[in-house]
C-alpha cells in the first residue's frame, strides 16, 4: 500500500496545477463560458500538446497507457479551476467507450484524432424517462441489411454541440430496462436524421438534447458486440464517476480554503468572523468531509486501477454518494459563511457550489448511489 504519486504523476500534477493557475482565474473562466464554443480551443490544443488527452489510452492506440489514477491526478487539478474544456466528455466518456469496445479498425480511424484534439467525442446515454438508470433505454436500433436504423432521443448530452462523434446507447433487443439488448454505436455528429437542441448548464458548461429520426449507421460503427453494450457503458460510467469525483474533491478544497480565508478577513462585531466558534466548527466539518471524500476517492480509484471490478463497483457507489452529499454540504456552507457576498457571481464560491450541484446530478445522485450500495 502506497499513496505516493509516481515521479511522472507528480510532474503531470505540477504541470496541470500551473496551467490552472495561469489560465483559470474566475474572470477568464466566466468570459470563456459566456461565448461559443463555451471553452478555449487554444487550451484544448495545449492539453493535446502536453499529452493530457493521450493519457488514458493504450500505447498501441497512440496513448500513454495511463489508468484511473492518472486521470484522477489531472481531474483533481481541473477541479480547482473548474476547467471548461471537454476532457470528461471526449477523453473519459466517449474515449472510454471506444477504448473498451471499438474494433481495431475503428480505433485506428478515430483515436489518433481524439488524442491530438482534432476529434471530440461525447457519450449520449441518458433518456427522458431513464433518470439515472444507464440500462433504461428506449432509443432503438433496428437491423436493416448491413446497417442499423436508430430512432429515439437522448438527454443532457455533455458538450454535444462541439463533438465530431457521439457514442450512443440504443436498444437492439430485450425490454426497456434490461441490461442485455443494449448496443453502442459511434455516430458522426453531422449524420442525417440527428438533430440537436443546445443549451448551457447552470455550472457554465454546455449540453444538448438529441433526437434521432431514422438515423442510418453501418454495422462497422458498432462498439463492442450487439446486445452487449451495457458492460462497456457501465465501466465507462464508472470511470466518469471517478473523474467527476476527483474534480469535485479539487473544487471542495477551493471551497473550504476560500471560506477559511474569507472569515479571517471579514470583520463583524469587532472581530474577524473566524473568531466565532460556531463558524470555526462549521469549517472544521467542511474540512473533515473534504478529507473523507478524498480518502474515498483514493480507495475507489485504486481499486478500479487494480482491476477488481466487483470490489471497485461497490466503492464507486459509496464514492458518488458521499461526493454528492458532502460536495453540496461544503458548497452550501461556503455560501452561508460568505454571507451576501457568497450569493453573488463575483466570488468563486458560488460558481464552485453550482458545479457541485451539477456533479451530483450526473451519473446518479447521492440517493441513487446509496440505494445501489445498500442493495
Amino acid at each position, binding site marked *: 500500500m502506497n499513496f505516493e504519486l509516481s515521479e511522472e504523476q507528480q510532474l503531470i500534477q505540477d504541470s496541470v496545477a500551473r496551467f490552472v493557475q495561469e489560465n483559470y482565474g474566475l474572470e477568464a473562466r466566466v468570459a470563456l463560458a459566456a461565448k461559443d464554443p463555451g471553452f478555449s480551443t487554444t487550451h484544448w490544443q495545449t492539453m493535446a500538446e502536453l499529452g493530457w488527452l493521450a493519457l488514458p489510452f493504450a500505447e498501441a492506440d497512440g496513448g500513454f497507457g495511463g489508468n484511473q489514477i492518472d486521470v484522477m491526478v489531472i481531474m483533481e487539478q481541473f477541479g480547482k479551476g473548474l476547467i471548461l474544456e471537454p476532457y470528461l466528455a471526449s477523453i473519459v466518456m466517449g474515449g472510454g467507450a471506444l477504448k473498451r469496445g471499438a474494433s481495431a479498425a475503428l480505433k485506428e480511424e478515430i483515436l489518433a484524432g481524439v488524442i491530438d484534439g482534432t476529434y471530440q467525442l461525447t457519450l449520449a446515454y441518458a433518456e427522458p424517462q431513464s433518470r439515472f438508470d444507464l440500462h433504461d433505454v428506449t432509443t432503438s436500433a433496428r437491423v436493416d441489411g448491413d446497417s442499423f436504423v436508430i430512432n429515439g432521443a437522448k*438527454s443532457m448530452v455533455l458538450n454535444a454541440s462541439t463533438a465530431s462523434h457521439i457514442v450512443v446507447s440504443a436498444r437492439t433487443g430485450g425490454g426497456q430496462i434490461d441490461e442485455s439488448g443494449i448496443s453502442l454505436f459511434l455516430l458522426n455528429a453531422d449524420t442525417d436524421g440527428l438533430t440537436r437542441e443546445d443549451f448551457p448548464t447552470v455550472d457554465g458548461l454546455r449540453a444538448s438534447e438529441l433526437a434521432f429520426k431514422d438515423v442510418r449507421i453501418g454495422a462497422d460503427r458498432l462498439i463492442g458486440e450487439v446486445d452487449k453494450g451495457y458492460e462497456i457503458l457501465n465501466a465507462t460510467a464508472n470511470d466518469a464517476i471517478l473523474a467527476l469525483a476527483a474534480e469535485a474533491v479539487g473544487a471542495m478544497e477551493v471551497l473550504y480554503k476560500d471560506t477559511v480565508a474569507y472569515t479571517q478577513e471579514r470583520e463583524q462585531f469587532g472581530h474577524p468572523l473566524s473568531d466565532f466558534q460556531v463558524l470555526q466548527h462549521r469549517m472544521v466539518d467542511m474540512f473533515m468531509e473534504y478529507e473523507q471524500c478524498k480518502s474515498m476517492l483514493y480507495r475507489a480509484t485504486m481499486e478500479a486501477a487494480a482491476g477488481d471490478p466487483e470490489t471497485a463497483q461497490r466503492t464507486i457507489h459509496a464514492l458518488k454518494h458521499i461526493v454528492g452529499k458532502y460536495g453540496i454540504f461544503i458548497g452550501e456552507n461556503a455560501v452561508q459563511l460568505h454571507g451576501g457576498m457568497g450569493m453573488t457571481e463575483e466570488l468563486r464560491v458560488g460558481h464552485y457550489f*453550482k458545479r457541485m450541484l451539477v456533479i451530483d446530478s450526473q451519473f446518479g445522485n447521492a440517493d441513487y448511489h446509496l440505494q445501489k450500495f445498500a442493495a
Partner: protein
Amino acid sequence: MDIELSQQDQDFRQDVRQFFADNAYKAGEDYAEWRLEWFKKAAEKGGWDVPKWSPEFGGPGWTPTQHYIWEQETARATLPWDMPFGVGMVAPIIMAYGNKAQQDRFLPDIRARRVNWCQGYSEPGAGSDLASLKTRAELSADGSHYVVNGTKIWTTAAHIADWIFCLTRTDDSGKKQEGITFLLFPMKQDGIEVKPIITLGGAHSVNTVYLTDVKVPVENRIGEQGKGWTYAKGLLQHERTGLAGLSRSLVALEGLRDNARSVPRGNSTLMDDPAFRAKAAELEIDLMAAEFTELRSLASAAAGAAPGPESSILKLKGTEIQQRIQKLTVEAGGIYSAAWGPKPVGNSFAKGGMAGYLASRAYTIYGGASEVQKDVVAKNVLGIKRSSR
C-alpha cells in the same frame, strides 16, 4: 384549547375565498390597473389590503386565527404582486414613531401601492453587525437638512423604488447603537447611483446604492436624531415573523409531490420511490409542527405581548424548511436540474427548481443570518450569559 374553527372563522374563510374568486385576474385585463383596483376592493372589505395594520390606521383588527386563515388562503390564491418594504416595513415605523404630518403624507400612498419603497440598512462593512453602519448624515448649519454620504448594499428593488428608508450615522462618539438616525428620501435624485448585483440564480433583485451628498430635509427624519436603532429593531422583529412563509411552504410541498408524480422511475414514478417519499414526509411533519409554533406565537402576540424573540425560532425553522423543499425539488429534477437554457428541458419544473434552490440559499443569510438568530435565541430565550473572555 380547542382545535375546531368557530362558525365565524369558517364564515371568514368562505368570505376570503369568495373575495379572491370574485377579484381574480382575468386574461387580457390590464395588469397594473387590476392590481391597484384589487387593493382598492380589499380596502373596501375593511382593511384587507393592510391585514397587519392596527384598526387605528385602517387595519382589520383580525384575531390570530383570522390571520392564520388569511395566510393559508393567500398561499393558494394568485394575489397581485406586492413588496414588503412599504406596507409591511416602513409603514409600521411611521405609525409608531413618525409624527402626524409624516403619517398623513406617507401612509395613504403606501397603502394604495402608489409608491414603491426599498430598505437602506446593510452596508459593505455592516451585515450581521448592522449597528456598525457608517453612512454619514451631517446636519446642515441652519438645521434645515442632512447631507448623506455612504454605500448601502443588498438593497432589494432599489432599481425600481421611489423612496428609501435609510439608517444613517449622525454620531459616532458613543455606543455604536447610539447615533443612528432614521431618514426617508426619494430615490430618483442627484447623488444616488444604483448598481445591480447579479445573484447565483442569475437574477437581478438586489443592488448596491451609492449616496453622494444627498440632501434630506429634516422633516423626513423619523423620531429623534440618534434614536434610529431603536425604531429599526422593532421592525427587524416584524420582518423576521414575516419570513417563515409556512403556508406557502405547504403549498410548495404539494407542488413538489405533483412534480415528482410526473417524473418516470422505471415502471412507476419518483413519488413511488421510498427514499423520496420519506424525505417529503419528513418535510410535511416539520411543517405540521411549525404551523402550530406560528399559531402559538400569534396567539401570544394577540394577548398583548409584542412579537418577541420566539419569532427568531420561526424564521430559523421556516427558512430551513423552505431550503429543504427547494433542495428536494432539485433532486426531483434529476439530470435535468443542470439545464440552464432559456426554456425548460426535460420537464417543466427543473429549471425553476434550480433557480429557486439557488435563491433560497439567501434565506438563511438576509434578515439576520441563522447563526446570529441562534445567538439571539441563546441569549434572550435560554438566558445564556456569555462570560467575558
